[in-house]
């Protein structure tokens, strides 16, 4: 498919815009002084037909879960049920104003209250806040809660431990709260190196953040020991719940010794990723951390839901209002449809799908950690014929009709290819993915040029990222 990219600005022509503004039929009773008004407005002049064709065309240049398998590791690109969007389009929810939510939108508060309760049941945590608007926002909120906990205790602890396999958001969130990151290595099995952890522990350690299962797709076999080590030293255990899909219904993170966690509603609970958001990253905590949750918290009394602000030990507010409500509504819908049994099956099928792919691919690709995996696993480009790289494999997969896996992450695996099929792909699709990967391996022998040139069939060919960074053009210029 050959396309000429163009933005809406290339369709601009004076006089095309026929959008009609409803008239109020009066003049201002109190005109704004002219010097406060804008001298020119320079957006665009296009017709409604232009707009429709333009964005329809742009949509055709995109690849989403609805286009095909999207095995982006740690991103849980599962199918997004359409009913979620149907309920999130109801005017009973979209039209409601946040400032009058207690008076006029008891139904919305009910959804939030019940979703929090369901997340507590699923994770074993005692209280959830739904305010964080994304996973990283949840992490930040969580680290603030950790900071507040020690501040109230009168302890000055300034170090947070993070495994070398962690998402970049973990250290970045930690740094935003004035903590120092201390990296803990993984051992050769992909678990946290317990000796290194013991050696790192002292009275300065506030917490450890661990993704569970970790970004290698492995469930850390020492997790109970890690929790014990941390708790013995008075430190807290934070669970990055980005990978909750692997264990949802199978184990509650609180039972593993975690004190605080975030979940990504846009991963485990099937809400769409929107091409980069909106997401939602609720934070759950054990009882002792409950006083530090952001305000407001939602309470229920005599069948009335209300917002509680009187929380003197709270970290404060972290969002303009209550978080991404329409995303919560989608997750609520999903959990109500699946129930506990359905969620447990989600984890089981996700893990079966990942292990099936792992077993099928490990005869063709290097698998650095040879263990049963959870919902995802990591292979790499080691031993690829002709020095074919991870990036070339990823780009070629696009030609075969698949989205690429997560590449070059986690950082501890050189040339990592992190594959997460999710539970919503059928065995036949997985087989087709294996076939594509094997075909690419064969091409590395027989026709390496095609891999170096890939992608060949996408709307645009390989994009020059170096040029974009060297001469940044960040807005349209004629």
């Amino acid at each position: 498919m050959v396309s000429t990219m163009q933005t809406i600005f290339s369709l601009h022509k004076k006089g095309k815009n026929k959008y009609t503004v409803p008239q109020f039929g009066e003049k201002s009773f109190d005109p704004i002084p002219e010097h406060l008004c804008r001298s020119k407005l320079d957006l665009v002049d296009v017709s409604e037909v232009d707009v429709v064709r333009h964005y329809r065309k742009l949509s055709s240049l995109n690849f989403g879960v609805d286009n095909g398998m999207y095995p982006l590791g740690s991103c849980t690109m599962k199918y997004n049920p359409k009913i979620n969007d149907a309920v999130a389009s109801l005017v009973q929810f979209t039209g409601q104003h946040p400032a009058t939510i207690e008076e006029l939108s008891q139904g919305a508060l009910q959804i939030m209250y019940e979703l929090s309760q369901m997340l507590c049941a699923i994770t074993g945590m005692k209280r959830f806040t739904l305010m964080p608007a994304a996973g990283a926002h949840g992490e930040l909120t969580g680290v603030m809660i950790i900071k507040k906990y020690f501040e109230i205790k009168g302890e000055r602890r300034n170090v947070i431990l993070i495994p070398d396999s962690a998402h970049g958001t973990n250290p970045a969130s930690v740094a935003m709260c004035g903590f120092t990151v201390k990296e803990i290595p993984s051992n050769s099995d992909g678990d946290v190196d317990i000796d290194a952890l013991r050696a790192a522990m002292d009275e300065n350690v506030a917490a450890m953040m661990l993704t569970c299962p970790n970004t290698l797709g492995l469930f850390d076999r020492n997790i109970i020991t890690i929790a014990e080590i941390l708790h013995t030293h008075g430190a807290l255990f934070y669970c990055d719940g980005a990978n909750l899909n692997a264990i949802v219904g199978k184990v509650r993170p609180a039972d593993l010794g975690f004190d605080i966690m975030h979940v990504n509603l846009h991963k485990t609970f099937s809400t769409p990723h929107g091409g980069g958001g909106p997401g939602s990253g609720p934070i759950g905590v054990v009882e002792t951390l409950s006083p530090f949750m952001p305000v407001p918290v939602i309470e229920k009394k005599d069948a009335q839901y209300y917002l509680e602000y009187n929380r003197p030990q709270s970290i404060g507010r972290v969002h303009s209002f209550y978080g991404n409500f329409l995303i919560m509504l989608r997750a609520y819908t999903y959990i109500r449809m699946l129930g506990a049994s359905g969620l447990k099956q989600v984890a089981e099928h996700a893990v079966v799908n990942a292990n099936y792919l792992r077993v099928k691919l490990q005869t063709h690709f290097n698998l650095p950690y040879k263990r049963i995996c959870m919902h995802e696993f990591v292979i790499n480009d080691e031993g690829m014929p002709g020095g074919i790289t991870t990036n070339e494999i990823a780009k070629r997969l696009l030609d075969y009709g698949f989205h690429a896996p997560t590449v070059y992450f986690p950082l501890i695996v050189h040339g990592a290819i992190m594959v997460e099929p999710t539970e919503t792909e059928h065995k036949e699709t997985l087989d087709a993915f294996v076939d594509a990967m094997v075909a690419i391996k064969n091409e590395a022998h027989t026709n390496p040029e095609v891999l170096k040139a890939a992608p060949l069939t996408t709307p645009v060919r390989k994009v020059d990222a170096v040029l974009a960074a060297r001469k940044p053009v960040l807005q349209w210029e004629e």
Partner: protein
Amino acid sequence: MSFLPNSDDDIRLMCKEIGVDSPEDLFVDIPSRVKNPGIELPSPLSEQEAFHSIVRIGNTNRRVCSLVGGGVYNHYVPAVVDHLSSRSEFYTAYTPYQPEVSQGTLAAIFEFQTYMCRLTGMDVANASMYDGATALAESMLMAVRTTKKNTVLCSAAVHPHYRQVLATYAWASDIVLQIVPYKNGSTNYDELSHILHNDVACVIVQSPNFFGVIEDIAKAAQIAHEHKALCIVTFTEAMSLGLLESPGQLGADIVCGEGQSLGNYPACGGPLLGILACRKEFMRTIPGRLIGKTVDQEGREAYVMTLQTREQHIRRERATSNICTNEGLCALRASMYLSLVGNKLLELATVNHTAASYCLEKLVALGYERVFDAPFFNEFVIKINNAKDVRNKLMDNGYALGIPLDTYYPEMSDCLLIAVTECTAKDDIDTLVTLLQTI
């Protein structure tokens, strides 16, 4: 309801290939004493049951004629926006890590960045933040990073929720946050000049401010710059940018705020659309995603995420922010909205102002007090005896009249912050006036 395509037979076959007897064997690494807990959730539902159950809950929300703003506004969303943003190639995609199959998202966000630059008068706008309040908090962090100074001054006329979020982020980062009082509904600029000193990183004002008053941005910028502080201008009502002079023209260094008004619904307060834009000298310290224009290997126009060395996935603890997922789909909707409305945004913004001025005129004619005699956009403060009683009675009659201000400003008892948009018809206002006469 289930969305699992594999049958029991498929699962058996796959387990056999893996070399295990059942899926349970794949969970061996989870300690058995905590495995498979009983989780109590409501019973599963079919799609139809779920839909009706949620509609019933939704129906307990009461729909009224709402004259409420204060950070989220009721504007008409053209059908085109819902229609186009519902294309699942857009909304079921992830962050555009693979540009060759993400040009749709990338180009639309590039358009968004362009529109935001043109509306704010800035050189660089990012691909969105979570909401106005966090965009402001990140702007504050950016100013502190850039100036290497640690005190921040914020006007008391900035949205109270935004100030609360600022306070949370400032506490976490050990930044000193000081509030500058307001006077006659605007930032007290004499007081600002008085408090300001050379160790201040930035001065934060909102325009139109929380009281709806249009601030003297030029003055704020001038005072800030005299002390080598940056001037951050925030806004909660993006519609105002269609009519009012851009903050950039008036001297702002960073402009941030809430873009919900541009094609997104009130939605009980989220998702919202954080906007963050700055002058080009701060380009490399801006948080979040940036989309840049480039070419593909055949020389064709193409778009890609760029300057990523600022970001957490590369720079980790030294990143400019931890933000990863933003509000991409809301930004896409804003692009669609602004493409459709185009320069008619000026006329639309004018209608907002006119309708608000009409409402104010009618309320003053009823004998209520206009609290601040200053230019406003589409929000204003009115004082009504027993305001809360009146407001409650109106609510029983289908009107939500503003936000009581004494929640945030104890000195402002009986004061209501009222918002009027193009969605408030003249008839709505006239009926309201009649009701007020009978209550």
